[in-house]
């Protein structure tokens, strides 16, 4: 093992290449001797020469950030040899979609409560009895979330509109909020089908890369983000941190061209949500009946 002059050992890069690690070694600050696996991942994906080429094309102040992203990308590729970071992006898109679905669902519930909250005081002022309306509202609650779940995106929910939805809709050339299924299709199309490299029947030429919606999404995301994008220093030094998230994911599934697992997951989550909602009415009706019986005595 060749050691640098002094007490410091060679960096992981030079140690792997069995060469003397000079003080001016470009990779030494980023591949310490105790991170051999990280270097091996980066070397396996990019190669030392390509990494050095990337670094030399950048300003020295950007080297740290670039190396963090390179190491992260290599570690993800090591863990997921088939899809790499693209799989992570897909999972995040899916996660965002689920969150937005829940967001709209809860928003619709909130609107109903707000409406009820405004109706009751006015009825009390007129001397009208609220319980019947409350009972009607109670019976309506179990149904509406289910239907609203499918049509929530048609409502004009101001105030809680996600700007990401707007940008995403803009990227998908979808100016108005369509149905949930359309959103799913658009998301799938923008991510996986319209990309010329990922489509099976897309015969677009290389010139269409600039018009690629997937890259457009990334560019849009990068451009629309007004905050400076700074990768924090604590990148995946120990890429085992990825395990809690990715243990549940099977990279070996070919899900890009097969939408069935994706759709079935959506359907399963929707079914669970629906079941959770459908279980409520019985309890609500019982409570409502109890209230009604109590008030009717007097």
């Amino acid at each position, binding site marked *: 093992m060749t050691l640098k002059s002094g007490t410091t050992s060679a960096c992981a890069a030079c140690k792997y290449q069995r060469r003397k690690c000079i003080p001016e070694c470009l990779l030494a600050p980023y591949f310490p001797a105790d991170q051999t696996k990280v270097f091996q991942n980066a070397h*396996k994906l990019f*190669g030392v020469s390509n990494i050095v080429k990337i670094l030399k094309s950048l300003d020295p102040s950007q080297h740290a950030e670039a190396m963090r992203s390179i190491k992260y990308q290599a570690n993800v590729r090591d863990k997921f040899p088939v899809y790499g970071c693209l799989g992570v992006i897909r999972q995040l898109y899916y996660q965002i979609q*689920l*969150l937005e679905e829940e*967001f709209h669902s*809860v928003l619709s519930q909130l609107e109903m409560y707000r409406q009820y909250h405004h109706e009751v005081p006015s009825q009390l002022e007129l001397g009208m009895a609220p319980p019947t309306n409350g009972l009607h509202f109670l019976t309506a609650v179990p149904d509406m979330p289910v239907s609203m779940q499918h049509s929530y995106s048609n409502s004009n929910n101001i105030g809680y509109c996600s700007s990401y939805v707007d940008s995403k809709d803009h990227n998908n050339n979808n100016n108005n909020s369509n149905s949930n299924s359309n959103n799913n299709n658009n998301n799938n199309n923008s991510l996986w089908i319209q990309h010329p490299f990922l489509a099976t029947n897309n015969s677009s030429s290389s010139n269409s890369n600039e018009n690629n919606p997937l890259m457009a999404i990334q560019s849009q995301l990068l451009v629309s983000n007004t905050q400076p994008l700074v990768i924090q220093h604590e990148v995946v030094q120990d890429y085992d941190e990825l395990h809690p998230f990715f243990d549940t994911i099977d990279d070996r599934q070919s899900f890009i061209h097969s939408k069935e697992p994706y759709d079935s997951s959506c359907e399963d989550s929707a079914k669970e949500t629906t079941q959770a909602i459908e279980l409520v009415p019985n309890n609500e009706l019982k409570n409502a009946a109890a209230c009604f019986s109590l008030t009717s005595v007097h």
Partner: protein
Amino acid sequence: MASSSHSSNFPCAACKFLRRKCMPDCVFAPYFPPEEPQKFINVHKIFGASNVSKLINEVAPHQREDAVNSLAYEAEARLKDPVYGCVGAISILQRQVLRLQRELDAIHADLIRYATATCNCNEMPPPLGRTCFHHNSSGNIYYPNPRWNEPYGGNGRSDGGSL
């Protein structure tokens, strides 16, 4: 885009770029058709042909096309953004996820507040709880580890965050 049939008269994009004879058993030919020269150029520029060849051979045959396409995407992203590459998109999406979660928490709080006020008035039952798909027993839905999903800081701070 995999080419099911390969003719030696039409070298694949890789062999055309590398200026070599495209053999019938060329590892690149099914995934780098001659109609998409830029795809291989990008991949070669970032990862190198030998690395790509090794990565292709390590993956099962039915997954090679997906692997190549993901490499092509990452290469293109790295060329567009040499500093962050596709990791920049991951960071942005993670921040979106966190923002949506915060908004969801806020709207849940509002919902509970309204429902509580309504319950106090008319003895209504509490609102429908938050859907439990985040805690799906099958584990398919991931509630992100805050440390792993800590967004890229925009305030110039250099501490914290796992990404």
